């Protein structure tokens, strides 16, 4: 995707790897140009004034000072540019993030559950149904408290700190936390969202470049916060299928080979609105 982000790159921003990311970079870039122009303008004026009106050069001050209304024009320009950025870019971009979720049948749906100091991922498996989770079933070997008596759990995939997604398909991650507030930050995907206990908050992005990316916990969550790192692997479709298969075997379920992506969600669950709890029958709020 075309991206014009000269100042961002100059300041060290890593390359974008998601479909919407270039839009985020654009508004950031506009902000940087705007800030830069104001800063250079003000600085030039400031340095000129400090030299021009120092006591030795200008021994008698002028009681009246500036009479022109140029500052009013400056004010209006600032307001105008900010209004354009707000109405033209920021609000529509945000609306796209939180209101216009992709169709579930096209998307990969994942639950991510933060805990001190790991990310748990819960994938529904070929049946497209998340198995029931219950806080009372949580053990060291079952960190999510997945109820294996629930038929929907049988093919579910649970991983810790490593999530694979296929390239060029939207990914919806529904975030929650077992204990404290975490933040699921994907620097390269230009997306981040708090994981708050008691809430289930969806976020989405569409990776457009294969590769391995860091998942950063962006919210102080205790003494191990600095090491709370996950890995997001954006695979080619074939690699993704291979990973699913491998995980399914590791999970010891009967799901030999996951179905093709299009049929992976046969139930075609209706996509929840933001904030609306997802379809997982998880009464615990996990």
């Amino acid at each position, binding site marked *: 995707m075309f991206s014009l982000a000269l100042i961002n790159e100059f300041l060290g921003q890593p390359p974008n790897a998601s479909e919407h990311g270039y839009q985020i970079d654009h508004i950031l870039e506009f902000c940087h140009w705007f*800030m830069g122009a104001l800063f250079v303008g003000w600085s030039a004026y400031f340095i000129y*004034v400090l030299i021009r009106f120092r006591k030795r050069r200008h021994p008698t001050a002028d009681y009246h000072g500036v009479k022109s209304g140029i500052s009013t024009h*400056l004010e209006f320009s600032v*307001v105008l540019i900010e209004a354009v950025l707000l109405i033209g870019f920021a609000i529509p971009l*945000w609306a796209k993030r939180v209101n216009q979720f992709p169709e579930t049948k096209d998307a990969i749906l994942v639950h991510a559950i933060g805990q001190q100091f790991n990310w748990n991922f819960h994938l529904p498996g070929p049946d497209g149904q998340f198995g029931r989770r219950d806080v009372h079933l949580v053990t060291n070997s079952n960190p999510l408290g997945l109820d294996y008596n629930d038929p929907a759990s049988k093919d579910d995939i649970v991983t810790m700190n490593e999530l694979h997604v296929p390239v060029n398909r939207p990914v919806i991650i529904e975030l929650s936390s077992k204990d404290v507030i975490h933040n699921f930050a994907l620097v390269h995907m230009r997306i981040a969202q708090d994981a708050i206990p008691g809430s289930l908050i969806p976020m989405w992005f569409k990776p457009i470049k294969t590769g391995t990316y860091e998942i950063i916990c962006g919210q102080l969550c205790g003494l191990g916060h*600095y090491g709370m790192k996950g890995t997001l692997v954006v695979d080619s479709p074939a690699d993704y299928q291979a990973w699913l298969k491998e995980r399914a075997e590791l999970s010891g379920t009967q799901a030999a080979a996951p179905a093709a992506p299009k049929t992976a969600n046969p139930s075609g669950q209706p996509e929840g609105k933001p904030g609306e709890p997802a379809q997982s029958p998880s009464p615990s709020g996990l």
Partner: protein
Amino acid sequence: MDSSTSLETHHDTHHRAAAHEEHKLGWWRTYIFSTDHKMIGIQYGLCGLIFLFFGFSLMMLMRWQLAFPGQALPVIGNALGHLFGPGSMPDGKMTPEFYNSLGAMHGTIMIFLGIVPVAFAAFGNFVVPLQIGAPDMTFPKINAASFWAFGVGGVIMLTSFFVPGGAAKGGWTSYAPLSVVADTGPTFHPFWNGQTLWLFGFVFLITSSLLGAINFITTIIQLRAKGLTWMRLPFFVWTQFVTAFLLVLAFPPLEAAIIMQIMDRVAATSFFMPTGMIVNGAPLHISGGGSPLLWQHLFWFLGHPEVYVLILPAMGITAEILANNSRKPLWGYKSLVFSVLVLGFLSFIVWAHHMWLTGMGSTVSAFFQTTTLLISIPSVIILSAFFISLWGGSIRFNVPMLFATAFLPMFGIGGLTGIPLAFNSADLYLHDTYYVIAHFHYIVAPGTIFALFAGIYYWFPKATGRMMNEFWGKVHFWPSLICMNVIFLPMFLQGMLGMHRRWYDGGQGWNVAGETVWGQTGFQWNTWISSAAWIMGLAQIPFIINFFWSIRHGKKAKENPWDATTLEWTAPSPPPHGNFLSAPVAYRGPYEYSLPGRDVDFTMQSEPIQPTEHVRRTEPEPEPVHA
């Protein structure tokens, strides 16, 4: 100059009389349990400065860990490990718990025990009654109570370093549920633990601010000198007035929230605790049903106005010093006053911009983005007015002026870099990265703290009767300015790389910090930043020595050493108990510098308007006062 010359002749006799009166009060009542606004201001100032340096020292320790993670701190590391107890710095190596304690306490101490006490309580107490020509605050005993509540809060905060487990570790924002589950369990005392003490300490600090704020509001409304109409108030008084309202309106919700968090910790309530939490692998036995976001809303309802509590007094100090040293009136006094009022109001309806990533919908975030951009308008007006005020001046670069001029571009950088953070879609990338740290530190460190230094150098002669040394002031200023920028500019780069705050390892374990920008990796920039922080620590030594040396040995100052115009400069230096020899009367605006047709380039507020005086001002015509 009539009033001030008459003061001069009586100065000595009165000073002796005042000294005699103070002597009668006794040492304890004069210097410790004083109800005199000047002494309380000085007490606040000294304590606040000590806390500022202490809070900065905590950061200097953290900067070691960030630059050289896991390595033993040379020379003092072992001693600090013994001082702060086991679990802090065994063998001189900092633990993650101790790092988090230092981080939380750095923020808490700098804001609530350092800057607020100095900017609001110290300068406000010392300067405001003098500037409005009042003999003292309206409620001197409440004023003393405010200081002592602050003292208790400070002692509790300091004590919390030495309880088992150390001081609070949940960040200065103390976000629940982390702050509710932290410092609990078998190794912690149910009461004597860092987080609980932090909360109790905060109750006292809030109480202190509320008592102070009530006093400021009543004093400014009730005790203005005759003729000192609202539009003749020095801008500094306006900023303190608005600040007091911010404190009095924003702190009570936080005080309630703090008590709710205390209840969550000690009484197993669930104000901020949702159902179904599993901590350390075990379900939490609480009733649940609470909301972690409730805490954030209540916290930031104070937290954002608090930013203006930190910056408004700094703007006020800067305004006084800019006018004084450019020798001309402040440009656009009226728009400055209205801007500061609008700023105060708007600061109450922007708080949720600290919470963009909590899952906010588009309508609510559109509202808060709009208010956040609206608040930039009065900020730009104020900064522009300061810049324009310099035009046509005759600028003297003494030490107060150096710090005040440095405030402008530093505050400018801080303000401008707030723009991308105001837009939630841009903040999506920058949230909780070092970019944010650099942004707000530019506002409060080289911004507010430079203004505080400017104010200290400026009003020192009024408080002590002696000047601070100019040369050592410059030795203090220049390294501080350079170091501030070497500390905070690279943080913008680190933030753009994607480095997040509160990383104990300085980013060593993260790939994003291994990327190169401007020839250094994000992690390597830590070495530059840390070195600059330590050098800046050294650069404060000239200030400390200058400050204490000048109290006794500085050049003697007359009552108006800066040829200033406002009423505090008509009182003797230092002012006696009761401040003024006769009740001052204001006849004109606060910044009558270089008034045409005068012999001197300043005309004091107390100087009556001569019938022949040809008054042409940009300010409204002052009403004649029949004294």
